[in-house]
């Protein structure tokens, strides 16, 4: 990817997901690509974007080259508007102050459910993953963008374990389970940008990334894909986006 286009998959993912954010929004960002993409959007197009972190930060303003190792480190608070308790910042999601939740995931399924807890049978797991952190709270209480690397083993028909709920089993099942607000509305990968069909709440391709064919995308996906009627082609990263991204993450901490 790097040779072909002059940018890495992680850089493409960061830039494309940054484009999903709008000025004036309040975004709750997880560590890694979400944090970097939100910062990129804030510096490039959305000076009025308010970034929240689960460590207890409102209005983060991350310094270029000083990316924090988690959203609980002091670097997250530099030049922020407010620091507060972890429960307090998470309760802002529940109260409804947050426009967009923004996170990554180890595994996603056709209904946008994310798994970051177990690979294999949870009773006898092949792999115990770190777990939800604030992911379940963000996914349960806000409209959410998911940014993740596109691999067949990560894009599955049904996740092994629903850590962070998307539309659960599709249709009205999310609402019926008691999750009255929010829901995944975008999944951004290095191959395509996805939305969700209005009734079944199943993932559908909105646009293909530069140089990606329908066949290639389907081959890398573990479930049958639906394509939006007016399928677009994603605009490639601009020089300006790439230059700023390199400035923010010169050591490629998140974008290696």
């Amino acid at each position, binding site marked *: 990817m790097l040779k072909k286009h002059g940018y890495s998959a992680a850089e493409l993912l960061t830039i494309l997901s940054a484009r999903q954010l709008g000025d004036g929004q309040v975004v709750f960002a997880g560590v890694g690509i979400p944090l970097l993409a939100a910062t990129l959007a804030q510096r490039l197009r959305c000076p009025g974007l308010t970034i929240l972190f689960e460590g207890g930060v409102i209005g983060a303003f991350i310094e270029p080259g000083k990316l924090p190792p988690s959203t*609980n480190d002091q670097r997250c608070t530099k030049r922020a508007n407010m*620091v507060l308790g*972890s429960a307090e910042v998470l309760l802002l999601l529940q109260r409804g102050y947050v426009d967009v939740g923004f996170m990554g995931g180890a595994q996603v399924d056709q209904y946008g459910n994310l798994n970051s807890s177990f690979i294999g049978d949870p009773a006898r*797991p092949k792999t115990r993953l770190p777990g939800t*952190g*604030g992911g379940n709270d963000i996914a349960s209480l806000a409209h959410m963008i998911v940014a993740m690397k596109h691999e067949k083993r990560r894009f599955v028909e049904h996740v092994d*374990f629903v850590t962070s709920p998307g539309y659960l089993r599709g249709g009205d099942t999310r609402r019926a389970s008691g999750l009255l607000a929010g829901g995944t509305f975008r999944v951004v990968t290095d191959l395509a940008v996805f939305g969700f069909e209005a009734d079944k709440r199943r993932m559908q391709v909105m646009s293909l990334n530069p140089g990606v064919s329908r066949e290639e995308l389907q081959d890398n996906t573990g479930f049958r894909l639906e394509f939006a009627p007016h399928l677009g082609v994603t605009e490639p990263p601009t020089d300006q986006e790439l230059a700023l991204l390199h400035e923010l993450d010169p050591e490629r901490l998140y974008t290696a």
Partner: protein
Amino acid sequence: MAANDRKATGKTASTYLELREELLRRDRSLRHKVVSLEEATSFVRDGDSVGIGGSTMSRTPMGMIWALIRAGRKGLTCSRSIVSSDGDLLYASGVCDHMVTSWFSQGILWGVSKVMRHYVESGKARYDEWSHMAMGMRFRAGAMGIPFMPIRSMLGSDVCKQRPEAIEIDCPFTGEKLLLVPALNPDVALIHVQRCDAYGNAQIDGLQFMDVDLAMAANKVILTTERIVSNDQIRRAPDQTKIPFFAVDAVVELPFGCAPHECYGVYEPMLRHMEYYVALVNDDPVKGMQQYIERFVHGPKSWSEFLALIGIDELLEAARAGESIYDA
């Protein structure tokens, strides 16, 4: 009810009167509570439920955990908002065989902890997963003296299905579905702060995480602190005091008490040591942890000797970065 009974029944909240009695038994007078790190370990008994302050690599009471390993405590059930390498150490040393948290790995920079994986996948230790907000609301309920808090997350997920202790209800006012998460009142809380006085009036700079709720929920609190200041200094800025003295049972002065993790405004994480640690233990979670614990926990004669093993260059670098948070 003893912690072990609670473990057997899966019950996490004491009755209200038991909770009040625990508090009545504590000496809540304005008195000096300064003890040595070794003396502080006697406040934790085998099998206790222990709440750990800070989050991920931030304000981790690492010195206290280090001392509990050296004291050979066993069978603790630990709870923390987010667990990092402190959890590896607690599992591998045999101090803790049950972790209650929302996320458990060394840090996102290093993938999945092979140590956590080894202990949990083999069934040698238990990891109960709750959402981050659920952890916060469990400590909050404990701090409020009520048996549960209602939340609107975790519903519909498999995280919820794995936690029979959480109960779904239809709200009696609105009819909406809610999840009730039980209060968490640890036997002991371990919390590291930037400064406190000899009575335990504790001031926390920067991110507080869940520490204030944890302190008020717990039946005992052990504070470690970067430095002990006078009561006069506390009284000059009482708005900065986040934990009141009467909730605190022991105070230990322990500079660099979170090393190799960070303490807000004082030092950032010691990432070279962390890189060394992660490479060692993720290569071989059993032998690697044995080696690390031998060399860095049992090897040194004191906490200062442990710091010397991390190295003065790395400590100074971390301190310079830590203080830079106050630069314009």
